[in-house]
């Protein structure tokens, strides 16, 4: 299949959901699944198009939207504590938008089971993404056709390749993040606390239309050398470390990593900043090396390339050592989740990377780094959408104060 990858400036929610449902049902068919019952916030967003200001994960017993997708035709069912956030634009019929479900509470799990009996054909194969205790105890009601299978494979297969509208919404999420970062970078100065940067960032992202902050923003002061700590299980860099009230000092190297959500999409942002100083020649050299590694990876990035093609390019450009964090990856997908398939360069191993064949429309966040022990290092993230003959960039935030 060859199709040009385009990013509409005005993405359409209705069209996006139509396309997503088509993909989901194709994947359901491939996996022999008749009904999807989805509890994960990002999976619910994917299946229904609903989005809402995400809460602390510990509130899932109080507010947890649930989506139900059946094989065949028809819109999905949405159980939501925020019906007013669903009704307006989703185009779901009234009888498909239900009040809240409480799958984390026994009475709620049984009630959900009774509802499902009315909504979905009896005896079909059900796949779920989470099985809290109450749902297991209500298993006979919820899963009369036998134990449920994993919905992860189904949703994972559907969401791997983005539709044009998905790319459009995702790019808006990325732009909101980048526009909010500009005033934060202006604030960067000796004496400013890490949390002050977060304060400025949060103010700006919400004012610019973010639905939620999805990650406690990272403004990590990097050590000069690894021996300064903290201790790690692998002896490699400790990152990301939680933001505190630490005051920044002149010359500090700051690794920034943040993400917000918009229309159900996660953004990702990564740059290296310097506090009250211009980069030294050695720091400029780090940046040039980083750029060389990135360019080498991008040079082989296209539909049909494997994850291993990318890791090989990165290794070669970095002189044989791994230019990414041992506990993370060279690259990861981005969409309704802030890190989703495809993963490139993880501890899943080389054979796994060889099997990951990039497809046009897949989104990849590349995050190589350069560590120069004794002089800290440089790290930044690039977000690209894969095309048949290469990639298109979804971000354009400058590298200041590095580069020309």
């Amino acid at each position, binding site marked *: 299949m060859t199709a040009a990858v385009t990013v509409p400036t005005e993405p359409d929610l209705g069209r996006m959901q139509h396309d997503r449902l088509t993909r989901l049902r194709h994947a359901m068919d491939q996996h022999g699944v008749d009904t999807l019952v989805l*509890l994960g916030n*990002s999976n619910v967003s994917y299946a229904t198009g609903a989005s809402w200001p995400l*809460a*602390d*994960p*510990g*509130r*899932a*017993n109080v*507010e947890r939207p649930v989506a139900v997708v059946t094989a065949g035709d028809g819109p999905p069912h949405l159980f939501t*504590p925020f019906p*007013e956030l669903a009704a307006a*634009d989703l185009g779901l019929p009234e009888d498909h938008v239900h*009040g*809240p479900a409480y799958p984390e*509470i026994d*009475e*709620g799990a049984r*009630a959900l089971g009774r509802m499902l009996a009315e909504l979905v054909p009896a005896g079909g194969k059900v796949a779920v*993404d*989470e*099985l*809290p*205790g109450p749902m297991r105890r209500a298993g006979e009601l919820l899963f009369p056709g036998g*134990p449920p299978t*994993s919905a*992860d494979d189904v949703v994972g297969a559907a969401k791997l390749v983005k539709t044009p509208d998905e790319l459009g919404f995702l790019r808006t999420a990325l732009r909101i993040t980048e526009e909010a970062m500009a005033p934060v970078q202006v604030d960067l100065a000796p004496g400013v606390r890490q*949390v002050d940067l*977060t*304060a*400025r960032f*949060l*103010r700006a992202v*919400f*004012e610019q239309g973010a639905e*939620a*902050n*999805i*990650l*406690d*923003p*990272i403004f990590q002061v990097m050590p000069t050398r690894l021996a300064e*700590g903290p201790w*790690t*299980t*692998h002896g490699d860099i*400790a990152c*990301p*470390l*939680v*933001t*505190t*009230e*630490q*005051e920044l000092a002149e010359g500090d190297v700051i690794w920034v990593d943040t993400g917000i959500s918009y229309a159900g999409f996660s953004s990702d942002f990564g740059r290296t900043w310097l506090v009250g100083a211009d980069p030294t020649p050695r720091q400029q050299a780090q940046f040039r090396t980083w750029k060389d590694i990135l360019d080498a990876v991008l040079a082989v990035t296209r539909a049909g390339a494997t994850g291993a093609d990318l890791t090989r390019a990165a290794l070669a450009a970095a002189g044989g050592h791994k230019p990414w964090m041992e*506990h*993370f990856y060279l690259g990861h997908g981005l969409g309704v989740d802030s890190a989703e398939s495809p993963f490139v360069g*993880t*501890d*899943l191993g080389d054979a796994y990377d060889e099997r990951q064949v990039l497809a046009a429309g897949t989104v990849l966040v590349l995050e190589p780094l350069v560590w120069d022990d004794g002089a800290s290092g440089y790290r930044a993230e690039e977000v690209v959408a894969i095309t048949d003959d290469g990639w298109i960039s979804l971000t354009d935030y400058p590298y200041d104060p590095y580069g020309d």
Partner: protein
Amino acid sequence: MATELLADDKALREARRRRALAEMEARDIDVLVLGREANARYVTGAQRLWTAGTRPFGPGCVVVRATGAVHLVSTWDAGVPEDIPHEHLFGITWNPGNLLAWLGGIDGVAQARRVGTDSLTPRFAKLLPKVFPSAELVDAEPALEAARRIKTLEEVEAIRASTAVAETALAAAVGGLRPGTTERHLTGVFMEAMARQGVTTPATQRAVRVAGPGDRSRGGTAAIGEGDLVVFDAGVVAGGYAAEVARTWPASPAALDDTAIDLYRSAGELWDRLIGACRPDTTGADLLGVYEAEGRPPPPFPIATGLGLGFDVPVVTRDLPATAARERLAPGMVLAVTAHAADGAGRAVVRKDAVLVTAEGPEVLSSSPHWRP
């Protein structure tokens, strides 16, 4: 928050861990395999990175009853208490095989007869029996829930501190309210004021909304009108503990009609009776009964929820009447209690406060001013 990444205070974490071990003992659970941050924080006192939204279950923390040892997925020791030695830390992994090998290699796991998890996925329902071939896999969330239900003295202090942060941020947002401003702007003001206090993690992120029909179509950008009722729903997570306080302010008091003023009166009466009912032996059904007695339908969301590290009980809502009837308040519980009065058009006055149940009666932990007619 401090200038360096610290684990929870020793007294706080030791009291919690003792309770968790006591519940394991009482329920004959040999090993806990925990995925939820609320539970991992409860037993470890470690501060890990906050993210918003639900997370699928995956093993991230293990407690072995026989040895009392706690093991944690963390690639570094920053934010990890000193009573969890380096050899009990396991680095972040993307490979389920590596995760299972770690689990299987933990001392005391091979002898376990009953292994409790705080949730599960179909995938781990298949994988975990490979690590614990002779153990029964049980739901441990009720054990953790029981441990977390009554707050220790240190936990109550942590919730007080978190509540103070929420209220200061709430006041900043209310200070920006005037006709013509937007939900987005005021939400930004709230979040900034929270972070300036050193707390960068919200509990809820729908911090400011016009309580009226059609708020979604506004997209948070439409100007707040003279007659609008604006709900400030302040939720923060400080030191791991959630605080929740909500107030409803008129955009322009002079523009309020009689119906809106009645809503304020009703919400005030509901609040008085709800808070008054927060004493030992009151049931969740009694709290719902307060709405009935006032002639107001309970809202379609919980009117009382436990506050703590997360997944707290009770959850009292009209949709779960049998659960509400069974839930009985006891000294040491901390609840977010909501009074909610709405008219037919969707306008509402909401008042939510944090309440500590004591033997003598309710102690309201929050003290934000509220608008009164």
